């Protein structure tokens, strides 16, 4: 049985990057996928604070793949990974008021809701890159949790009290440890370490404006 009635999750479009955003009634907004490199690049071009050498360092651990050419084998390369928490927070601030990294509880709650939900409908006003990604992920995934990349995606930054940790269930060729996101938490993260498997998505609670 679904935890929510059918119409409680809708997909809308974010105003900054025109990528899909889940609107979950009474809970909040969550980016449908982890933030992609294309989205982060929009941020880079608007803030004049990140140079080529910085981006080369980021791409060295998880190289860029174009949304035109990615495949089922390599889609993890679409997502921005290896950021420090401060770089994630700068993006969140730019992305919109109230957006931040979800807490462990928020992430797991939404993961359960999505796992029980139907497939989503694509909003007509998402950007061209988002449309291309949507189309391919529809072919690659068998369930809404796979489609949203909460399963078979990357490890994502989450807040755990005052600390930061990681949640997710990546495919073994991307991150070799088998994880159950409902039980396991990736901790003991060294500060200033760029972890190729760590990306993020953003969440805003319904009353966080």
């Amino acid at each position, binding site marked *: 049985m679904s935890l929510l009635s059918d119409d409680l999750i809708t997909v809308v479009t974010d105003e900054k990057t025109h990528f899909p955003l889940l609107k979950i009634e009474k809970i909040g907004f969550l980016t449908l996928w982890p933030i992609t490199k294309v989205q982060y690049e929009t941020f*880079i*071009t608007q803030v*004049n*604070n*990140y*140079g*080529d050498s910085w981006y080369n360092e980021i791409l060295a651990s998880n190289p*860029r793949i174009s949304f*035109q050419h990615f495949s089922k084998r390599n889609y993890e390369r679409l997502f921005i990974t290896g950021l420090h928490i401060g770089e994630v927070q700068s993006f969140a601030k730019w992305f919109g008021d109230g957006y931040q990294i979800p807490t462990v509880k928020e992430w797991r709650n939404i993961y359960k809701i999505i796992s029980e939900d139907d497939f989503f409908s694509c909003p007509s006003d998402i950007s061209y890159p988002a449309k291309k990604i949507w189309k391919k992920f529809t072919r690659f995934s068998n369930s809404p949790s796979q489609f949203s990349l909460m399963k078979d995606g990357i490890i994502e930054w989450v807040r755990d009290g005052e600390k930061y940790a990681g949640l997710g269930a990546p495919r073994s060729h991307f991150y070799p440890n088998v994880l159950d996101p409902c039980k396991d938490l990736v901790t003991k993260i060294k500060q200033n370490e760029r972890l190729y498997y760590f990306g993020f998505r953003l969440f805003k609670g319904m009353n966080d404006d």
Partner: protein
Amino acid sequence: MEEQFVEFSVPKSENIVVVLDASESAEQFWPTIVDLAKKIFQNTPAGIEKKLFFLSNPQEYNIDNFEENVGSWRKNNNKKGSFISPILNQITQATIVVIGSGIIYDLEDWKIHPSFQNIVFINVGNSMRGNVELGTEIEKDDFDDQLLQLHNRILSVKITGLDFFPYYWDNPGYSIIDEDGISLISSNLEDYSIKIAAYGRNITATMEKTEKQEVNSLSHTGTHTPDIIQIIEHNNIKWEKLERDEMETFRKHIVSDIIRCPDPSCENEITGLLRCDNPKHGKLLGFPIYPSLKNYKGFVIFKDNSQGVFFKHYPSEIVKIDEEKVARSKKSKATVLHYEPNMKKWVEQDDLKPYHPLKGGYYVSLI
């Protein structure tokens, strides 16, 4: 005999968009980048619009203030990475020149976009394209040659080939000439791009430019042989419907041995053009058989089906009417030609009948 679709495509506009790389990877080459940009601006002929952008920034900069402001503009664009999407997202038709050094990260996103295959990358240090095959990348030492090319405007285009005989083209700025074989020619066009269905081999487009002549080989587009019905159905011209009495005339005409003027007081025989030349009508250009088509000139296609009789203009002076057979309109007359393999040329046969049947209930007529 070989038959194919070929396409000749050139940028429509006479705009030049210069994109400067102010990113970290081009920092040490900045003086060269500025010098080359100035050379382009100074040598661009009047009448060609120039636009200036910086990589990673959608904002257009004013070239008139280039010298005084270029230093501060660089600072404002120095830490934005190297991305071309903010510029290409807003440009449709232009000659784009990027001057810089170091990889442009998002070039691959644009690789399959047909409008940007002519981008020129002027590499002043390290490659901007890497392995991405988009546009042309040249070294700064070849800049002077490239500069001539940038301002090398097309004055005219001539398309021809071995046994070339086009029977459909989508740019009305081109016309047929008969000089050492058939050619399509055009001059003074804003847009020389053209898609052609034609008989023939080794088809080339010769461009007369301000600096020199250039010859491009035109290759097949698509994998299938052109089909005249598909061409008629899928071109951009809309079908219109004949009026009820016109429909009756049409259906009577196509089964008659002798075609007569529908005016009961005339009944003059119609042999070529769908107009009656009986002076009693008092029409200098002849009395139109179909009032719905009175403003048309050239070939018209009719389509008869259960919903009625429809017509549309055929945009070219030549139409394919059968295998290795075409009709060509010239001075209010259409002549049927067929390919004579022994003589290796197209030979005139008869005049086109008022309604020439194509396959599947389609007819071609001359108005």
